[in-house]
């Protein structure tokens, strides 16, 4: 317990040192020229934080980092503050060209590499929480790895799956998708029931769903999966699975 506690303290410290080391080396040169009449610097990355400084047109500022739609900039006089993306879009780079702050949109989904998401669902009557990560093989097809935790009245299950997902039309706002895959399921009966054994079984699934684009890099996904668990008993078990989730791509 003490060791874990120490780890909890050490980990953020390590992260800070590495993150800030990387910060200085990579962003040393990124400088822009203000092209709007002026840009406003806020004390924090949000519209609720006050404007404390204004940089005029023609002045140079360095862009240090980004948090959501806000950019931390440093002026020639060394003042640091947060500027919105809208205002920074009107700045120019040192060649006099507008700064390209690419914002992911619906069309970028077709060229995604990675996506990930979390789901809340129902796994044969049990409450299910699951997370997945996917790697795109083509515009339509991706490989997905899913980890799920189903918590029921009589048993709890841990499920690991690998499969293929085919998004029928990735360029549409709402598109059907099809999934197929295989995995394993570990089922643990509730402690309050009479002594029963843990079970490890293989399973396979086919599924159908809808993927709806929300905004920026975010989508919602509704999915139905029909699972077949290959039990060690005489007959296989069939489990219906419904889930709704939130996904984002890179």
């Amino acid at each position, binding site marked *: 317990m003490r060791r*874990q*506690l120490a780890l*909890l*303290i050490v*980990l*953020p410290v390590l*992260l*800070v040192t590495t*993150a*800030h080391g*990387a*910060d200085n080396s*990579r*962003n040393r*040169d*990124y400088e822009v020229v203000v092209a709007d009449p002026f840009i406003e610097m806020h*004390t*924090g*990355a*949000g*519209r*609720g*934080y*006050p404007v404390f400084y204004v940089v005029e047109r023609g002045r140079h500022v360095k*862009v*240090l*980092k*980004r*948090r*959501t*739609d*806000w*950019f*931390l900039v440093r002026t020639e006089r060394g003042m*640091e503050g947060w500027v919105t993306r809208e205002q920074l879009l009107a700045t120019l*780079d040192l*060649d006099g060209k507008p*700064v*390209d*702050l690419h914002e992911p949109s619906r069309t970028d989904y077709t060229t995604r590499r990675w996506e990930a998401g*979390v789901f*809340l669902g129902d796994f044969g009557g049990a*409450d299910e*929480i699951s*997370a997945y990560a996917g790697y795109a093989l083509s515009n339509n097809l991706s490989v997905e790895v899913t980890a799920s*935790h189903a*918590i029921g009245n009589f048993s*709890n299950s841990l499920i690991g799956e690998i499969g293929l997902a085919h998004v029928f039309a990735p360029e549409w706002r709402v598109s059907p998708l099809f999934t197929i895959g295989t995995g394993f399921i570990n089922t*643990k009966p*509730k*402690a*309050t029931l009479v002594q029963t054994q843990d079970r490890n079984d293989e399973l396979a699934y086919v599924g159908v769903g809808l993927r709806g684009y929300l905004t920026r890099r*975010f989508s919602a996904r509704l999915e139905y999966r029909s699972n077949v668990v290959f039990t060690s008993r005489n007959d296989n078990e069939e489990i219906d699975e419904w889930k709704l989730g*939130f996904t*984002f791509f890179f």
Partner: protein
Amino acid sequence: MEVRVHVLLLTVALMATLPGCAFMGKGRDRQAAASDADASAPGEHAVIEPEVTRRKIKTPKIRNSDFELGAYYGIISIEDFGSNSVYGASLSYHLTEDFFLEATFGQSRAGKTSYETLSGAAQLLTSKERDYRYYALSAGWDALPGEIFLGRNRAYNTALYLLGGVGSTHFAGDEHFTVNLGAGYRILMTNWLAMHMDVRDYLFDSDLLGKKKTTNNIEARIGVSVFF
């Protein structure tokens, strides 16, 4: 006679053409001289090779710092099992300036129920079953951004956030589907370091004491986090 006339005409013709031939020779010499001159001065007619190095175009590579990793310590009141210390870690991803997702892992250890304390000997749970562990996936809303003022010259950015989510609690040898609701206060000490004060309620159904009921397990904690 005829021959003499022929010789005369031929002589005249020769006289007329020879200087011309001499001229031709001269002309050829001049051309040769001109081409020699061309070869010796290549800059006059050759294609100009620009000696400009191509400038490297650097697309902006601005580091994102949308993730927040934190650790916390506090007190959790496990319903019927007393209040105990709790510690854990959390990872947040800020989607927009208003919303974020958070994954939390925490652990504590349950104490004794009043019945166990009063009866003396009776034990409802084994020592191992008293381990209390949970995870939660939550969505948060930075509802009230603001500032906190310390003295005259110091101001820190803050945000009061509300959050809720789902997860699982491992307690008494069982997993329980858990809903969590809470509120917290984030104080940004710098652009990358924050202090947190949170209150969460973890709700799950339990039939541990004979009758099924929804338990409220309220946690109060303080924490520190870094943005990266």
